[in-house]
């Protein structure tokens, strides 16, 4: 029987240049859950995500992923192969085609034979709505929305237990945001476990099982989206949400 919590983060601290960026973050993520992290720039949201897959090594605290203490493991690349990461700036490998981008992890990390990896990569690309005529294009020949969907396919093809999204739509033209959010919403409905750092409160309202508001390295408020976004208790969160509601015209008043 699998334990319900896929990820447990306990008292996580990170100092950068002597200043605390994360101040004792504690939360857990259940299987199939979509956790949305909101908060202002510089709150430590990206650092938190990067700590979870150890692109940034935390200074104190525990991260239990799938029953294992991640910080105690020396073969961190094996842990990372079970966690997808989707970056704000897509970070597709610029010397590889869309298809090669998705295949790289399958061939070099999962040691899949090439033809099998290719089949799997094509399935993943189809799943995010990237049509066949785009498979052999280079990242620079794709729109931002297409690049981000290829990046999601690249993460998805590895069959991760968890996908971390770091502001996946912040670098996109408004019109292209939709196609990426749409793919993410479908993933959430398919019960993929996800942690999403975003400013898209509309997306959070529809999809999040829980919303956490992060500021100054601390979780100021957490709960269902209706509470945190529409009726926050914390003054700081309320001020932030009022402005977000204005920007996104989500006035419920």
């Amino acid at each position, binding site marked *: 029987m699998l334990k319900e919590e896929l990820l447990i983060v306990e008292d996580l601290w990170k100092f950068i240049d002597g200043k605390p960026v994360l101040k004792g973050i504690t939360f857990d993520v259940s299987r199939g859950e979509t956790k949305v992290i909101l908060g202002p720039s510089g709150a430590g949201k990206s650092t938190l995500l990067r700590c979870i*897959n150890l*692109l940034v090594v935390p200074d104190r605290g525990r991260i239990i992923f799938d029953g294992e203490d991640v910080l105690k493991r020396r073969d961190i*690349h*094996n*842990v*990372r*192969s*079970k*966690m*997808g*990461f989707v*970056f704000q*700036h897509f*970070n*597709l*490998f*610029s*010397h590889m085609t869309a298809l090669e981008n998705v295949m*790289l*992890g399958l061939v*070099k*990390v999962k040691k899949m034979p090439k033809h099998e990896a290719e089949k799997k990569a094509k399935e993943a690309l189809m799943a995010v709505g990237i049509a066949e005529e785009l498979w052999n294009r*280079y*990242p*620079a020949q794709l729109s931002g929305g297409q690049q981000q969907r290829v990046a999601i396919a*690249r*993460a998805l093809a*590895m069959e991760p237990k968890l996908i971390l999204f770091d502001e996946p739509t912040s670098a996109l033209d408004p019109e292209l945001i939709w196609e990426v959010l749409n793919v993410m919403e479908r993933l959430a409905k398919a019960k993929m476990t996800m942690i999403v750092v975003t400013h898209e409160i509309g997306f959070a309202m529809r999809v999040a099982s829980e919303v956490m508001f992060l500021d100054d390295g601390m979780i100021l408020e957490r709960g269902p989206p209706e509470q945190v976004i529409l009726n926050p208790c914390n003054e700081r969160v309320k001020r932030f949400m009022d402005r977000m509601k204005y920007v996104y015209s989500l006035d419920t008043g």
Partner: protein
Amino acid sequence: MASNTPEIPWWLSKVLEVMWQNFVQYVPIILSALSNTLILAFFSFGLATVLGIVMAFAEVFTSKTILIIVSWVARVLRGVPLILSIFLVFYGLPKLGLTLPPLYAAILGIAIVDAGYQEQIFRGAIKAVSNRQLEAAYSLGLTRASAFLYVVLPQAFRIALPSWINDFTIVLKDTSIAYAIGVVEMFTQAIHVAQVIMDYMWPLVFVALIYLAICYPLSMLSNYLHGKLKMMGMLGSGV
């Protein structure tokens, strides 16, 4: 002289014509030395590439101490005047018991200095690969070694290509300094011809055009590749 167009005076054009006719019979002799020029260029450039890549890798993949030592070595190499390097190899090394024929001495002398420049090209190219690319590779579960092998190095070599080709054109022209230790390459041969026909003009202009004919297409290629890299987004901010 009532003509209002700046015509070359008849006597000067006659002189030039005679000089050209004197010179033209020596063209095959000058061209016969092109092979030595190319041998000098290819071998010294090849050797410098190997040395440059080894130094760049040592700087990127080993310890901080080695980084400091190697970058100083490269800086010293870049600071040596080419003719000094060639003389040191040709006239200096025999004192240490190593006597090289002029051609080999010139190859080694040019390679030593050029290695310093190529170290800069390859180290710069590795550093220019965006850190984001490395993070993406790590996030898929690639080890540090595979991330460099499959993501960083293939991009670094593409980024290095235009500068590397440019460097070849510089080395090709630098081979003319081998004249100083008596290697019979194209420039040397042009000087010999000039001394025989007592005219430096035509032989020198002629070899200049040969150098240009080789370098110009290569710099066009370098520019084209640079543009292509830019289009592929590989010459970004280096973040």
